[in-house]
């Protein structure tokens, strides 16, 4: 009866001297997986033109219906999105838009610090989505 109790004490004492797993979050950041589904990015051609052709597949497949696109045509009939907006307050980060895109025009970055002070901050328009995302944190500690 006494021995298991002592074993328990031994175990907890061993924990006292272990390296702590706490990550001091705002000072240190979690390193997330390579395929982490964070904030979306609209990609561009090497020439600088947006890849998206406003085919509406992403807006159609989106289960949260958070993507809003208005297409337009250039003089040479190439389609491009006049407006491309994602409402992050509705987005469930399922990644279907990335899967379905035939042009690899939308990707998900590893950016996970996407909180904002108002709902407007989380309603991303085309310019915001074209911004390169915050780079991936390279840290020793792995998430999860």
């Amino acid at each position, binding site marked *: 009866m006494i021995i298991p109790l002592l074993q328990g004490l031994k175990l907890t004492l061993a924990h006292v*001297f272990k390296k*702590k*797993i706490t990550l001091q979050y705002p000072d240190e950041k979690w390193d997330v997986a390579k395929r982490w589904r964070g904030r979306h990015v609209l990609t561009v051609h090497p020439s600088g033109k947006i890849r998206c052709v406003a085919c509406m597949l992403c807006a159609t497949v989106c289960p949260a219906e958070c993507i809003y696109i208005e297409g337009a045509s250039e003089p040479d009939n190439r389609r491009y999105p006049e407006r491309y907006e994602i409402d992050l307050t509705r987005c469930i980060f399922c990644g279907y838009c990335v899967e379905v895109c035939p042009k690899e025009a939308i990707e998900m970055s590893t950016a996970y610090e996407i909180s904002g002070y108002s709902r407007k901050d989380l309603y991303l328009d085309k310019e915001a989505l074209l911004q390169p995302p915050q780079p991936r944190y390279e840290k020793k500690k792995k998430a999860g």
Partner: protein
Amino acid sequence: MESAMPIIMVVVKVLLVIVAILTFVAYLTLIERKVLGWIQVRIGPNRVGPWGLLQPLADGAKLLLKEEITVAGANKAVYILAPLIVVVCAIVPFAVIPFAKGLGLETLLGPTVSQYDLNTGVIADLNVGILFIFGISSLGVYGVILGGWASNSKYSLLGSIRAAAQMISYELGLSLSVIGVLLLAGTLNLVQIVENQDSIWKWYVFRQPLGFLLFLIAGSAEIARTPFDLMECENELVAGYQTEYSSMKFGLFYLGEYAHLLFLSALTTTLFFGGWQGPFLPPIIWFLAKMFFFVFVFVWIRGTYPRLRYDRVMAFGWKTLVPVGLFNVMATAFIYAIYLQYWGA
């Protein structure tokens, strides 16, 4: 003026000890949170000040600034009185704990010091020290049960009933576990008990190992710490008898609780581990080191064991602790009597 001096000196001494105790009690909360954190492979508080050292101050300030609530239907006088009883009963027993051999005041202040007994490292050198301790700490039950009753809440009342039942049951086991030491020491005076343990082999823990074990168990039940903290069993009773208390009144209950913990560690040190006795270092350092070691042990125990079920705690108290304690007293008395008869002086 000459006659008022000793009284002022005594008051200063008492105040110094109380301030020291309150500081230790405040830092006990930090020690507890740190050690519990380490046991759970966490870091523990480290944001307020370096290494979290200002955390107790921040907690205290927060408690003082919180809104004072008196529940409707509470018996106001008793409601306010209860936390005071708890705190007083937790701090007063420190008066008889010898924390050092002598304070070395004679060279500083002349012969009046020894005349008025200021030099001893204890506030009140009572010849019934242990009786005094048990007497006062039994009074602590009143604070608990009055607080629970005056809150006019079923959770508080249930918590205080549990607390009172548990404290009264384990008071018995605690007293029995100490009697072994008293028989060997032949005195109730804590100063003399410490002076008897002047080498490490004379520490009563080696002559009374069973008594020490019983003391540890009954003690942690008496101060209601895990695994015996069923008076504040969250999933059954919200928070126990202090459920309806807020602000500093709540803080006083916790102050009492941690002061009890500190006192139990001090008493364990005094009774079983030679108090301030020890080589090389000054007595007060030895006393504090031993005391804080036992504080660590109690936190360690809290971080290890889950809470027991209420009926099992009571059954263990009455059906195991009391009989074993009685056996320990009988066996100690029997063997000591034979020893005195044939080998003793």
